[in-house]
């Protein structure tokens, strides 16, 4: 949801005359929405700005984002960071992947989700 939110906001800022760049990890959501400029890091969600405890990787990620801001020739410009989370890409198979869950795990998640829905119902601007 975070990636969709910033995508919608970037579009609004840009239409209002403010150039934007998004730094993010969910390529499909951002590109499906359609945004002016996007630096994509192929990292687990939560690491849009570089690796944990690695200032050099964070600085390199920001520098790439700034270059996308400066150099994008038109809207829907995506640049992918050359950094890799790790050599082995098997982490990509885990996120919300039903194929990797047992029926018991799915039932457990279903119960947890019902609780979350109840909490959200009590809040304004339900989300």
């Amino acid at each position, binding site marked *: *949801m*975070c*990636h*969709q*939110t*910033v*995508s*919608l*906001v*970037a*579009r*609004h*800022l*840009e239409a209002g*005359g*403010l150039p934007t*760049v*998004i*730094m993010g*990890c*969910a*390529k*499909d959501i951002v590109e*499906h*929405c*359609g945004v*002016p400029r996007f630096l*994509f890091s192929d990292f*687990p*969600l*939560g690491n849009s*700005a*570089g*690796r*944990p*405890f690695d*200032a050099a990787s*964070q*600085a390199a*990620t*920001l*520098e790439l984002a*700034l270059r996308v*801001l400066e150099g994008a020739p*038109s809207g*829907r410009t995506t640049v992918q960071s050359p950094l890799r989370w790790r050599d082995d*890409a098997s*982490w*990509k198979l*885990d*996120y*919300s*992947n*039903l194929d990797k869950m047992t029926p018991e795990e799915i039932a457990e998640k*279903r119960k947890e*989700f*019902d609780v979350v829905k109840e909490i959200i119902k009590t*809040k304004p*601007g339900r*989300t």
Partner: protein
Amino acid sequence: MTFAPEHDVPIPYMQRTRDYYVALGYDNPYRWAHFEDVPFTPLPTPLAQARVALITTAAPYQPGVGDQGPGAPYNAAAKFYKVYSDATTAAPDLRISHVGYDRKHTTAEDPNTWFPLARLREAAAAGRIGALTPRFHGAPTNRSHRVTLETDAPELLRRCREDGADVAVLVPS
């Protein structure tokens, strides 16, 4: 010649979450925002002279609403529902327990991975950007496209303009 493994592609989050929530009993698939046209505004000034606004989806820490991490389970009670702003000279205590980050492969222990304030300050000190605006801004993550587009996005634009921003860097968590 050896190709990379088939699964070594950007994760298809829309498909994964659609399938996942159907399995969890949500039979009404979420409609993700999708537009044909994309607005585009050229840079008005070189970055070395530009005032940069930073926009995050991270939440200010709220005492009393449960575990907010690092590493906390998803915490819907820690969500926020209004745009907020804080000084870029401060050291804000921001958390991301209210969003669906990858809890298996990252622990959210280092806020610099989703909130590049320190790195932007360094870029300003080095002259790579002109300056940060006096405030950064928090964008609520709302399932409702209408709330984001009609309420939150206009408020964020208003605050960026008030701060004299020339460009904005947006970072989802």
